[in-house]
């Protein structure tokens, strides 16, 4: 009679498990972030609402105020922070310490897939088998993990994570960074955006993820001459969302052609230098993100 074969859990003489390696790799994220005082995600369920511009402007505003700021561009397929901050490759690396983040003129430390890809090239993965859908999510999560763990962020007051569009993104970030301090949600007033952002906020709430507040972007078009605001949408999505989810509406920001042009030219720092009411509003949002800002 064949003797009983021990089960998987009864065999533990040699430890080289794949789950163990995954846990060890994720542990390196925590070790790297030990010198980061605050980690904040900037999220939106909807693309095209100005989330990345908000992330870059908040980061630059904080850096100009003397804070040590990192910006992790987690939008691997549509990275834009490097362009907005006027940063380009190459990156330096030290075998022992990690990859040095690129730096903007104001001192924002940035890591972005844009710094790693050929100009205009899409992020394409090596697929020995045409079944990328099976492991695409794993590859992307692993890439973001390496952005956290393998970058020599140094001591930071705040690390801002610019999340890609998608309802699940904040929850995914929280899975990777359990010590996440909170998130700022960005919407535009229109109903299509509100619907998507509402789903993101609902998921965040259901998981108990901390929300620092809501920013309504493109609330109107500001006149270049007198500053008078012309509404761009009939809806007041930010106000509605804030009431429905009991989240503070931190700011309602107009579309500003000069800021948009500055972001295109990688000149957000210069735009902030010029001051003005919108720059002050962004500084106010930034103060909520920085250490000492209100936590829920």
């Amino acid at each position, binding site marked *: 009679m*064949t003797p009983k074969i021990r089960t998987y859990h009864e065999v533990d003489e040699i430890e080289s498990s794949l789950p163990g390696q995954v846990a060890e790799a994720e542990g390196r994220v925590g070790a790297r972030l030990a010198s980061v005082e605050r980690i904040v995600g900037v999220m939106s369920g909807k693309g095209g609402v100005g989330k990345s511009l908000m992330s870059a402007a908040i980061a630059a505003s904080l850096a100009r105020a003397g804070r040590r700021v990192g910006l992790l561009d987690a939008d691997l397929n549509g990275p834009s922070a490097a362009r907005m901050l006027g940063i380009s490759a190459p990156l330096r*690396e030290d075998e022992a310490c990690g*990859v040095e983040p690129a730096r903007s003129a104001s001192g924002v430390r940035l890591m972005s897939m844009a710094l790693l890809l050929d100009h205009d090239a899409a992020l*394409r993965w090596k697929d020995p088998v045409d079944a990328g859908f099976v492991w695409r999510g794993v590859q992307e999560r692993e890439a973001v993990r390496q952005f956290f763990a393998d970058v020599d962020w140094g001591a930071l007051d705040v690390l801002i994570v610019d999340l890609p569009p998608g309802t699940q993104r904040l929850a995914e970030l929280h899975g990777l960074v359990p010590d996440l301090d909170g998130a700022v949600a960005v919407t535009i007033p229109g109903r299509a955006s509100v619907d998507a952002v509402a789903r993101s906020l609902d998921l965040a709430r259901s998981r108990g993820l901390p929300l620092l507040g809501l920013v309504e972007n493109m609330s109107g078009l500001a006149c270049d001459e007198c500053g008078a605001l012309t509404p761009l949408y009939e809806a007041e999505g930010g106000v509605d969302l804030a009431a429905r989810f009991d989240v503070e509406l931190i700011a309602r920001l107009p579309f500003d052609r000069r800021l948009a042009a500055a972001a295109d030219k990688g000149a957000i720092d210069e735009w902030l230098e010029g001051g003005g009411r919108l720059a002050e509003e962004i500084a106010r949002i930034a103060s909520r993100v920085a250490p000492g800002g209100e936590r829920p």
Partner: protein
Amino acid sequence: MKFLCVDCDRQMAFEERELPGDGTLAAVFRCPDCDRMTAMLTNPMETQLVSSLGVQVGGRTVPAANFEGIRSEVATGSEEAFVESPPSGPVRWNTDAVERLSHVPSFVRGMVKKIYNEYAKERGIEEMTPDIMDRARSDLGLEGM
């Protein structure tokens, strides 16, 4: 995944890994008692799923390099993404080894260099040569890289 020698009732130990470069992987395990060996062969899909996780069947033999997964898995990495880092650490690279390393695409060169350095350090090797590189490729199953 574990391999058990049924006759000895002992867990088999990882022996060696080979990546022949066609997307498949062979991992050999040996019974510590009777020396019986068995090979686990994975198809390209299984191999890719494991490598996407940034893990290695049988366990890691050298620590992961910076952005190892990104550099290994991204097909559109820029050759201008990284500045060549100056030599560091206890391992000297002789001229032939440096010349050979220069043929590695720059997107993955830093990663490959670190893997070779770690291999040498763990074995007390002070000078990197093409022969050592060949040995490391074989021992670490880097043929597919």
